[in-house]
């Protein structure tokens, strides 16, 4: 099984190396057009310590969990 995993890893690394250069679609928003997106007000992680608290408060009170976009790792509360 390890052999297959390594083979898959090499294959994926090769795909990764070639990147998207073979695709006909080109990146349509140029780096110099991204100043609005780079504005700190657009940052999803503007206040990371507050986001961690919000996630913790909800984790103990709702059954839904996961896909928050952060690292996750569980609540550890009962």
């Amino acid at each position, binding site marked *: *099984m390890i052999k*297959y*995993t*390594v083979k*898959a*890893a*090499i*294959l*994926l*690394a090769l*795909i*990764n*190396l070639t*990147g*998207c250069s073979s695709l006909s679609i*080109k*990146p*349509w*928003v140029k*780096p110099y*057009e*991204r100043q*609005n*997106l780079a*504005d700190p*007000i*657009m940052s*999803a*992680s*503007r*206040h*990371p*310590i*507050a986001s*961690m*608290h*919000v996630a*913790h*408060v*909800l984790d*103990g*009170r*709702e*059954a*839904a*969990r*996961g*896909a*928050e*976009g952060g*690292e*996750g*790792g*569980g609540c*550890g*509360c*009962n």
Partner: protein
Amino acid sequence: MAAKQRVVQKVEKVVVVAVTKFKKILVLKTRSLSMTLRLAVRLVASLLLSLAVSVTSIQAAVLDKDRVDVLYHSYEGGGMKIDGPSILLRKKATESVAVTAYYYLDSISSASVDVLSTASAYTEERNEGQLGIEYLRDKTLMSFNLRQSDEDDYFAQSFSVNVSQDTFGDLTNLSMGLSYGDNDIKRNGDDIFEEESQQYRLRAGINQILTRNLTASLNIEAIADDGYLNNPYRTVRYIDNSIPSGVGYQSEIYPQTRNSFATKLSASYYLPYRAALFLHYRYFSDSWEIKANDIEVGYRHPFGDTFELELKLRYYQQSAANFYSDLYPYKDAQNYLARDKELSDFDNMTIGIGITYSIPDSLSYGHSRSEASLQWDYIDFNYNNFRNPMDEGGVGNESLYGFSANVIRAFYSIYF
């Protein structure tokens, strides 16, 4: 320069070894899980390895800035009062390596409806610590995080590995990660009681720049739990006409496994007058037949360079677990029993407001840029099949339970 390269090579080696070891541990630990999940674990482990060994050097990304955040948090609602401090430190060791440290304390005073109906109020503390390392190689960001949480009756340890990669002219960011957590559960006042549970997480995400003002992201995560998943203190109630109160109580019994899957779609939009609009939607389902939806709209509006206002509106709704009941017809009515209100059919609505003040450099510590923020969330919970046993009306006819909570965060951030 040579020394820096050696450090970078060493860190890279450590990360690759950690990823490999983690993969081995997961392969061993997931034998009891389904075949699909095991295949998924191997696939993600392969992807992590492939990203770790690939080199895509055109234009290097940069690590986030160094910062310290100090926070006081408070939660008050439903008979519970929880507060305490928290601190988050982030520091670059080199241009490609950053370390993070996090500490969090919950000081809990509980007299919730569950506690008052069957036990007495209590106080306790929960300490949490996290240590993380991030390694940036060209456009690939790898991170490794350790976490520990400690209470009198609950000890949790977990670690997670995450990899993200900028691609397609940096318009697209792909990410994936794994976590493994181990929990030891005890029951205060019962020295014999000792249980444990494990949690496995697999996640992936894509973040895409769509226009010069719009980005969107899609995140998915599968979580599998194995072991003792009950709350050891909670009980279910059942009709018992042999006693004067007409209601008996017995311990909850949860299944030993739980598998869940969540999908979240997010969008961020830059408004023409310099403000930001955020939209999130998540769909969740699990093997206990709970289905949940949540939708959130956020708005961030700066006033000059000094103030920033944040507004939030969130709605959450879930269906009940298939073994949940507020009142069972008799004792041992089912194989699995739960009356945990978090597993009932309910919804909640959050209204949030926050303000951030940029402190002038001349007043900041060491002339670093710093900010002071205050956030307040008001959450209103409505339960559709969980009744308050202390209410009038007779067994099974009490009013449906509901409560509201105020959540406050006051924090100070220094960037240096």
